[in-house]
């Protein structure tokens, strides 16, 4: 029993480099910037309350309150702004600029922890207030930012590391958070693959056809798709296998690289053929951070580990 416990602890708390955290921070910084820029002209329209928005933010927030009144939302910031005489539009603009600022700050690695917390909070507010206009990308951004703000920042490539000489104390805690991201990805792909396997359309290519012809994802001309019709069932089955097999084959040394390439390839293809660039990017970032560093066995573990104080167990 003791041996099992030790094995589990060894697995969950490996001492390792913080390169993965740098990839996550840089990736999420870039993601936040692109997210903010992509919504620049529609931000107020999407998140305004009754009277000036696309669909009332108040409606989304009212439904959210039925679940829990403690989930962050833009309504809190707007109510706070009203106390100091700021209009809804001004508060929304400040929120957008702040979000963009946290993205830049994360990219530079300046004030990493506070930037990560602020980015998570502001993005969460937008995602929850605009629940009717949010989709998968918001879900995965929340997951990524949640883990980033809890991880032992800063990483060695950040400006904080160079300028402020702040260092995380425990290399095993660093390893723990990487394991959390890795295992979460395994659960994500397993259930995503499993539910696809349960649908008949993924085995005969029907769902690939439907996904690629369904507005607004219909970027590839149908005439071109028809030419590849015999390839669609292969593609559908491959997606099922890649996703369901992810929790196994991503851990085996021999298949890790192949699986990672397949998954990244799948997300690049989704981005290019369906126009879901932000969704593709967040999935690439999470995979690259979780399994990228060390995938080819070239990661320089020693130097990074040496800079962190070993865990006091």
């Amino acid at each position, binding site marked *: 029993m003791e041996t099992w416990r030790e094995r589990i602890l060894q697995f969950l708390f490996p001492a390792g480099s913080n390169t993965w955290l740098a990839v996550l921070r840089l990736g999420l910084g870039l993601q936040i910037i692109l997210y903010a820029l992509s*919504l620049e002209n529609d931000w107020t329209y999407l998140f305004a309350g009754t009277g000036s928005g*696309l*669909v009332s933010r108040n409606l989304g927030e009212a439904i959210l309150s039925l679940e*829990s009144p403690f989930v962050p939302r833009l309504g809190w910031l707007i109510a706070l702004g009203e106390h100091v005489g700021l209009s809804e539009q001004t508060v929304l603009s400040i929120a957008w600029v702040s979000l963009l600022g946290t993205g830049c700050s994360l990219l530079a690695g300046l004030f990493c922890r506070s930037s990560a917390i602020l980015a998570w909070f502001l993005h969460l507010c937008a995602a929850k207030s605009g629940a009717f206009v*949010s989709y998968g990308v918001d879900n995965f951004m929340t997951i990524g930012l949640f883990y980033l703000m809890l991880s032992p920042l800063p990483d060695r490539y950040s400006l904080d590391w160079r300028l402020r000489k702040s260092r995380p104390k425990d290399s095993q805690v660093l390893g723990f958070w990487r394991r959390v991201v890795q295992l979460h990805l395994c659960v994500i792909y397993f259930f*995503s693959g499993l539910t696809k396997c349960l649908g008949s359309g*993924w085995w005969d290519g*029907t769902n690939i056809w439907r*996904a690629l012809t369904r507005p607004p994802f219909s970027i590839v001309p149908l005439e071109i798709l028809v030419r590849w019709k015999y390839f669609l069932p292969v593609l559908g089955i491959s997606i099922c296998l890649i996703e369901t097999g992810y929790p196994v084959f991503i851990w085996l040394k021999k298949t890790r690289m192949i699986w990672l390439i397949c998954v990244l390839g799948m997300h690049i293809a989704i981005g290019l053929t369906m126009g879901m660039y932000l969704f593709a990017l967040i999935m690439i970032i999470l995979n690259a951070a979780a399994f990228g560093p060390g995938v080819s066995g070239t990661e320089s573990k020693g130097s990074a580990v040496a800079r962190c104080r070993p865990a006091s167990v």
Partner: protein
Amino acid sequence: MRQKSVYLACFILHFLLIITVSFRETLWLVARGLTIFPSSSKSYSAKAEKATFAARGHNLAASSALRQALATYLHLAGIERGYGYFAPNVPESYKLVLELHYPDGRVEYQLPRVNRAAAGLRVAGLLDEIGRTRYDPLREYMVRMLAYSTWRENPDVTMIRAVFGSISLPSISEFEHGKRESYEFLYAYDFSRIDKATELETP
């Protein structure tokens, strides 16, 4: 060692929640006969789904502190929903056509508009949400909001007829035989200036 035990306890709780939520979604699909599983599996799945509901505190009163704490944590961590995107099958997509009636009898047709493609994806998600909802007043309210947003850009319009429908996609063989995407009528709502002034309220 104590620090590790705390991390381990949090880890177990966190992943129990993730797996429970993911299982619940899968069981929901099976229970509603949306998968390739035989219909005999529906009742078992429905029972199992109820158990996962209980694990998330959904059998507690809505005002229960535990239920609200769990719901809050799920939202904060981004783990409140499962990962069955486009699964088990790709869902239908929907379209909203707004018929704008002007005082001079002129009629124009518009779709809900946004500035960039990224927001366009979000509007498509909103239309899916409207199409999926089974609660008529909520559906009407959301369509009304979309119509009202168009009204702001076209203040001269006296009446808007919002026609909501599903998009029927051809299969590969149908496409090869010349069939193209078609639009199937589901609901229609008329909003006049009086509606605009009186019925748009905060929920």
